[in-house]
């Protein structure tokens, strides 16, 4: 009964989304206030209906109602409650339902918070959101309905893949979707501006916070996924340049570019059509990510044909949405009023360079990800594009970007004094040089990678701090505390996010170049030595969890003859799916992780013990966390939080250099 209600709610949401997508557009064209207002109520009804549908599916999971096909295929009565709930979105149908739920939530947020927006703009934004919702709800209803019943009802379900039964994975998809779908707001605002043929001053003030929110969520989502891969897969890696990872990385790169160009629109009323284009592209990559993963096209071009309905529907949806928006852009953008002028050497110029490099990086990842598909489809040739390709193409694009990120924030708007900036950055250059020299001298073997990487990270951190201390007047004037409080939060946010990038780079460099590994065939009492640690295999015990059997290997970790800790890697067997997983054990310290995983050994008494010392890995997560926090701090800036723009304050008269 509840399931049928959920299904009806889904149909209702689809119909309401269609209304939301059409009526306000007509209203905006005719300047009919009543028709435009319909968008608001429709957004509310759509969200309520989808929340109902989602609750119905969640209820089926929580109560293990195996008469529902989706539950029977992806759940089990013995599964812990957390994973029963997260199992709702741990499968194709449920995750698409989450997608439209988040989309509707963003739509309602626009409807509720858009008091200061011109009524026509708001009506159009809500209509675009409605059309997007209708497109995806149609997809769910036609090809991926989670509410299909099963007859006869099986005694129990087939369980969720054990690897997905993990707290990291419980929250990874929702965060990722918040990011993906969050870019829909910038997209809808852009399409609305294109329909209107002009960029309203309110436009920029609105696009930036929404982009910031989406970007922060996407950053957190990607980091969570990466962290999960690191500790759960037992390979110790955190980024594989896998097409599925790239599918989430492309919107992140485009979104990062958008975040920066939106600053120029907000502060200087320039780069307007470029920012509109980026908003379309960022959301386009979000849709493409969904398409790539959902259609099965990544496994092989031919897997696309296994379920052609789904793939074809998303492909058409993608083509209509992005193609339509780009066509509208080509048609309307040239007619838009040009923005204010600036010299190439200026904050605007720096942000343009940032955008150029980020766009290049996005294109590189995109081509690298899709090339095998196109080559196979076009010529039947098979080629692999793996990590080595991305290391030699993506990384070189990032190096100048990091260099620039140190300089850009110190440049003045409009026209900057480069000499003065370099004078201020002398200390940063010295720090970078010192770090380079130290790295060169201290590392084993003279690999240039860590030298360049750490020097750049030091450069970025030092120049970011120089910029920040200059702003708050540290070491110089009194009243520093008051300045720290008085500085716009977006300035603190930028400082934190750029520092986070520097910290992340250190982590990535440390793990990529200095990881040490030991693999031994071990029985109890065996000893392995690695990076100053002595690891002793104490014993092997058996245990059990709620829905698995486990074998726990106890390892004693010693350093300088003293026991400093214990590691307990596990091997688990999940009888329902008949799968084995490994649970790595990690001893995380600021300077690096000691990582242990066990596998089957040569004989029943032996275990393959795999130990890594992965220097600076915690810096990767810390850096990502700093970036997310920076985004949120910036989001809490009063100017953005208030939302309703004060008409008297134009973008040009705002104090220059909030970011």
């Amino acid at each position: 009964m509840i399931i049928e209600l959920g299904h009806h709610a889904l149909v209702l949401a689809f119909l309401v989304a269609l209304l939301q997508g059409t009526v306000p557009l007509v209203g905006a064209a005719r300047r009919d206030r009543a028709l435009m207002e319909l968008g608001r109520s429709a957004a509310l009804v759509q969200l309520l209906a989808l929340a109902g549908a989602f609750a119905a599916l969640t209820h089926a999971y929580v109560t293990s109602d195996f008469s529902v096909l989706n539950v029977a295929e992806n759940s089990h009565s013995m599964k812990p409650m957390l994973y029963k709930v997260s199992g709702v979105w741990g499968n194709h149908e449920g995750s698409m339902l989450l997608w439209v739920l988040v989309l509707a939530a963003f739509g309602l947020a626009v409807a509720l918070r858009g008091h200061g927006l011109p009524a026509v703009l708001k009506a159009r934004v809500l209509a675009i959101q409605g059309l997007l919702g209708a497109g995806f709800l149609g997809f769910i209803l036609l090809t991926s309905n989670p509410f299909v019943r099963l007859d006869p009802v099986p005694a129990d379900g087939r369980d969720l893949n054990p690897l997905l039964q993990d707290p990291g994975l419980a929250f990874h998809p929702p965060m990722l979707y918040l990011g993906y779908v969050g870019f829909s707001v910038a997209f809808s605002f852009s399409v609305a501006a294109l329909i209107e043929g002009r960029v309203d001053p309110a436009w920029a003030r609105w696009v930036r916070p929404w982009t910031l929110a989406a970007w922060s969520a996407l950053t957190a989502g990607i980091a969570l996924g990466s962290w999960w891969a690191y500790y759960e897969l037992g390979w110790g890696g955190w980024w594989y340049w896998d097409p599925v990872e790239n599918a989430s990385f492309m919107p992140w790169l485009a979104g990062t570019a958008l975040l920066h160009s939106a600053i120029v629109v907000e502060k200087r009323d320039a780069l307007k059509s470029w920012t509109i284009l980026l908003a379309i592209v960022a959301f386009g990559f979000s849709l493409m990510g969904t398409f790539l993963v959902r259609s099965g096209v990544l496994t092989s071009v031919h897997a696309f044909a296994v379920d052609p309905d789904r793939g074809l529907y998303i492909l058409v949806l993608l083509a209509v949405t992005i193609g339509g928006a780009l066509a509208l852009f080509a048609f309307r953008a040239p007619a838009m009023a040009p923005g204010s002028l600036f010299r190439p050497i200026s904050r605007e110029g720096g942000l343009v360079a940032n955008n150029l490099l980020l766009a290049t990086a996005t294109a590189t990842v995109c081509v690298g990800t899709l090339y095998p598909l196109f080559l196979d489809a076009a010529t039947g040739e098979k080629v692999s594009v793996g990590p080595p390709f991305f290391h030699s193409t993506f990384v070189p694009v990032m190096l100048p970007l990091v260099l620039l990120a140190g300089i850009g924030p110190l440049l003045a708007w409009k026209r900057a004094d480069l000499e003065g900036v370099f004078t201020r950055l002398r200390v940063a250059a010295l720090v970078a040089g010192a770090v380079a020299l130290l790295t060169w001298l201290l590392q084993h073997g003279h690999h240039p990678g860590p030298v360049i990487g750490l020097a750049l990270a030091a450069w970025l951190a030092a120049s970011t701090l120089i910029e920040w201390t200059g702003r708050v007047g540290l070491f110089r004037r009194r009243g520093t505390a008051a300045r720290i409080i008085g500085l716009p939060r977006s300035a603190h946010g930028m400082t934190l996010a750029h520092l986070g990038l520097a910290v992340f780079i250190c982590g990535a460099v440390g793990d990529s170049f200095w990881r040490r590994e030991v693999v031994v065939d071990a029985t109890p009492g065996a000893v392995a030595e690695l990076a100053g640690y002595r690891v002793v295999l104490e014993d092997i015990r058996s245990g059990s969890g709620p829905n698995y059997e486990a074998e726990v290997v106890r390892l004693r970790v010693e350093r300088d003859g003293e026991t400093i800790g214990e590691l307990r890697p596990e091997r688990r067997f999940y009888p329902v799916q008949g799968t084995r997983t490994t649970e790595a054990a990690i001893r995380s310290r600021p300077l690096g992780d000691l990582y242990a995983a066990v596998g089957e050994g040569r004989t029943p008494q032996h275990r393959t013990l795999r130990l890594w010392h992965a220097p600076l890995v915690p810096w990767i997560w810390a850096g990502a966390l700093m970036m997310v926090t920076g985004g949120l701090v910036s989001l809490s800036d009063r100017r953005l939080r208030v939302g309703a723009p004060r008409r008297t304050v134009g973008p040009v008269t705002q104090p220059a250099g909030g970011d």
Partner: protein
Amino acid sequence: MRVLAIVGLLLLISHAAPPVHAVQPDEIFADAVLEQRARELFRGVRCLVCQNQSIDDSDAALAQDLRLLIRERLVAGESDEQIHRFLVARYGEFVLLDPPFRPGTWLLWASPVLALLAGVAIAWAALRRRRSPAEPVALSDDERARLAALAAGDEERQ
């Protein structure tokens, strides 16, 4: 989203072989330099039955076979290039994670440069287009005459 890839990959693994770990203790060379070379090679070779994994990471039985094959050739004193050639002859270019530079992949390798050049060209064109209307337009004869008249008027008043 990578979840699905993992799921697909797991389905493959669970049917293909029992989970053992990637590089096995008994296959490792005593010679650290040679081992290092082997690992570098492994990282660039695709596990053909997995989804986007190198044979260095992969648990699959086929990946181990490939590793042992490469190790044998390393011991026999072959160069990295010879081993690559052997692998390509046997499995096709699909086996290399680092795509070779040849007509079919020119576009792939050139894409970062092309993208950057295109971006610079667009930015340059946009800057030029925007600067031109800002440049002062010469006064017409009529305007010049009116200006002269105004100036003359000012002088007279003073």
